[in-house]
Structures are given as structure tokens and as C-alpha cells.
């Protein structure tokens, strides 16, 4: 299926949610949505019989300094097409709906995003730190993250020439 056709099809199915549709350099589709509509968009993408984007390939969060974004990469066996869903949110207290009810496998991905970026996922069943120790302070993948000098008595100071 051509990417153009997919844009049309998605426009038809998700007309009220899509803010912007764009082509990525490798002809994948990137759709920008409002964060409030994330759950319903995911639900349509996964369960619509013509779309059937039932594989969650990837999830990540990005810190754009003035805002945060969550990105989901979906794949459809039926259309053999990838689609990237992106939603922005404010930088203060970033919070978004967890899509665990649609894609069960997103559990750990969202935990990792919470761990490293501090984006909270509403309705997540087990939103705890995944990779870092539970008493770690801060979220390292944020652009304004300041490296701690010490953790539980361990000296973590970076040498300047490392940069």
C-alpha cells in the first residue's frame, strides 16, 4: 500500500484526532495527535479491521526542553506498514494515559520512560523505576538533568575531560 493511501485511510478513520500527518525519511508515516486522544487512537489503530496495527514495535519518550513527547511505533501485519504516533505534552508534570489496556506489552516500555524521563502514565499497573535503583533521584534522560556527585556514599563525579 502506498503511504499516500494510508494517509487517506487513516484520515478517514481518525479524522477527529490527527493534528498532523507527515512522512518520515524512510517513507514511514508519522501522525501527531493530542495526548488526550492517545488511548482512543491506539484502540482504533489496533482493533480496526482495515488497519490492524497490532504490533507495538517501540515506545519512547523525548524531552524537547519546552515540552515532552511520547512516541509509539506500530506495525500492521495486514498492511505491512509502520506508523509512528506522537503526542506532545507540557513540560511541567508530564502525564499521559497509559496504553497498557490496549497493548499489554507496553508495560516495561512505559516503566522505562517513567524511569529515565519522568513521564507519568495514568492507569499503569506497576509504575515503578525499572533500570535505576528505586531511591535514585532525578530522571537522567531529561536535558536539564544534573549528574549527581554522590549516590549512597559512592562518588559519581564525572571528570571534565570525559565530555
Amino acid at each position, binding site marked *: 500500500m502506498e503511504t499516500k493511501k494510508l494517509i487517506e485511510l487513516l484520515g478517514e478513520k481518525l479524522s477527529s484526532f490527527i493534528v498532523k500527518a507527515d512522512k518520515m*525519511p524512510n517513507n514511514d508515516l508519522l501522525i501527531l495527535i493530542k495526548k488526550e486522544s492517545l488511548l482512543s487512537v491506539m484502540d482504533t489503530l489496533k482493533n480496526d479491521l482495515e488497519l490492524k496495527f497490532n504490533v507495538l514495535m517501540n515506545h519512547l519518550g523525548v524531552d524537547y526542553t519546552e515540552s515532552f513527547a511520547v512516541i509509539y511505533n506500530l506495525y500492521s501485519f495486514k498492511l505491512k506498514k509502520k506508523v509512528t504516533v506522537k503526542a506532545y505534552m507540557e513540560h511541567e508534570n508530564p502525564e499521559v494515559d497509559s496504553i497498557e489496556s490496549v497493548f499489554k506489552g507496553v508495560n516495561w516500555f512505559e516503566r522505562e520512560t517513567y524511569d529515565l524521563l519522568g513521564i507519568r502514565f495514568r492507569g499503569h499497573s506497576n509504575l515503578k523505576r525499572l533500570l*535505576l535503583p528505586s531511591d535514585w533521584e532525578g530522571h*537522567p534522560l531529561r536535558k536539564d538533568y544534573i549528574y549527581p556527585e554522590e549516590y549512597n556514599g559512592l562518588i559519581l563525579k564525572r571528570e571534565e575531560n570525559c565530555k
Partner: protein
Amino acid sequence: MTEFALEEMILNMGPHHPSTHGVLRFIVRTDGEMMLRATPDVGFLHRGIEKIAELMPYESFMPYTDRIDYLSSLNCNLGYALTVERLAGIEAPEKAEYLRVIGAELTRIGSHLIAVGALLLDLGAVTPFVHALRERETYNSLMEMLCGARLTHHYVRIGGVAFDAPDGFIEKALSFVNHLEYEFLDEFNKLISFNSILIKRLANVGIITPEKALEFTLVGPNLRGSGIKFDLRKDEPYSIYDRFDFEIPSGSGKFGVQGDAYDRYWVRIEEIKQSCRIVRQAINQMPEHGEIKTKISKPFKIPAGEIYVRTECPRGELGFYLISAGGKTPYRLKIRTGSFSAMTIIEELSEGVMVADLVAIIGSLDVVAPEIDR
């Protein structure tokens, strides 16, 4: 009246345990030999590779991709290089693509040898592991010929590869894959694959139905073990994989139910064969002379944009989501690995099985700890 209450025992399996393949920890709640649940605890090998990427020029990050998955470093190199190339709009020369494919498939063979060997070692069969390592030794010296490193290859560069194949490499690689496909695998299967104890240990253990596999975002051999014939080399050909003729093995419930541990084991054995076929074809098709690296601008900058590229690693899909803001360094690089999703399903599979089965499940999912933590 007093009621009999089961007393749960909490076993702390790892971070230092012989069968956790690296530094992993499972909090296992057991009732004697029966397990109630095993909760994975990861993060012991978290090195913050994604953060490091944001501080590094694009080319300098390449050695770090070796460390994502030390058993298949060349495949990780390739995935990263392809991501950057696609976003920057660079094409690698043809010969470089062939060298990449040969290297990547040899690495896949080496990685699968470890995967099946380590699984068998966990089941108590030491000899097949050593036999697999003997073959891996040949692979190691082949890679040493090619790029001078035995484990962390750092062979692929943005826009090509680092070195041309040295004299004698092609012949040695050919004899290696011939030996593997026609001699070693038959011997190995006779030795262990059809052993009835092994079948008893692996068949009907850790069954993952196709629906469950998709639900938990399993990828690669684990997904194919559940019977879903999906391979990025075939379904979404990257590099030059569309030029080769090979099959996608998938689990069929050879000795038990579809999607059990034996299926995943058998898919890996079959994939070694297919990789041998690809290497042979690539060697035959490879042009004798030619450029091996496209010149890239210095300092290397990529126009702003974002891209998601996934490649087929021995442990399944390796995806790089790269966001560039137009500078010398990535704005954000997310690495999505196969072991990460394989880990999520262990908790589900571990309910109501025996401690010995947990070992078989971990081994059959082929989890490599640094890939989970990154």
C-alpha cells in the same frame, strides 16, 4: 482448628547465579520445587547508552553499539549505521553492503551457537556447549581476520565498512559455513537435539501462543518459535537482503505444542543453516573490487528529522529511533532490543512451573542482560 497454610519461600535468583546469563535477578516465590511467580529485576548493567549517545558525535557512538549486545555486536553496528545513513541520505557502496551481510550473518551464527549452547548448559549438558564453542572459535578467528576484534567488532562504519576482506578470508568463511551446515549441525543434532531427555525437558515447557507472543511484543526467533513467520530480512528487506534466497524457519510443535521451548531452540538451529546459505550466496555474488566506504562530510552533521529503523538481530528486532536536531550529536536515540521484550514475558510464563523449568525458559528465550539494560 488450625489450617494448613503453604509456606512460601522467596528465593533470590541472581544477580550472581549460573543460569541468568549475565547480571540478572529474579525474585522467585516458590512452594518447594514449584514456582508461584518469578519477578525479574533488571538494571544491573544499565550504562545509560542512550544518554551517552546524546553526548557523542554520530561516528563516535559506533563502538558503544558493540556493547548493546556483546554476542552480536556487528549486527548492532549495522543497525545503527543503517539508521544514521537513512536519515542522512547516504548510500553504502555495494561491496560494503556485501561485507556487512557476510559479517552480520557470521555473527548471527556465532550468537546462535552461544544461545543453543548456553541453553543446553543450563539443562546440564556440558559437552554440546563446548562443541558449540569450538565452532564459535572458528567464527571468532574469522572476525579477527576481518576486523581485528574477536568480540566487540566495530567493523561497520557510517557509509560502509572499516576494512576490505583480507586474503584468505573468503575461503576460510566458505569452509566454515560448509562445515557448519553439512557436518557440524548433523553431528550436533545427533548428539543432543533428538535426545529424549532434552525433548522431555524442553517440549511443552514455556508455551507461548502466537497471540501472547504478539501481545508481549516478542521479536525474532522467539516470535518465530511461536509459529509466526516474520523476519525483517524477508518482510522488510534492509541492506541487500532481498538478493538472497533463504527460508524463515518457524515453530511447528515438533515434539510438543507450538511455541514451546523446544520450538524456540529448533528455530535457532535452523536459522544457523539459513545464515550459512546467505553467507555462501553473498560470497558468490560479492564483487571482487570496489569501494568499501562512502566519504562522509566532516564534521558529520545530519539534517533535522526523525526515523525509526529496525533490523533483524540474532535476538530479534533491534530498532533505533533517532531524532536529529541538525547538530553533530543525536538529539535522542532510543534503542529497542529483543531481550527487553523477552524479559517481560518471563514473569507470565513462570507461574506454576518448576525451578528447573524457569532455567529452561530463560535459556530458550535467549536473554542477554546488557541488551535489556543498555
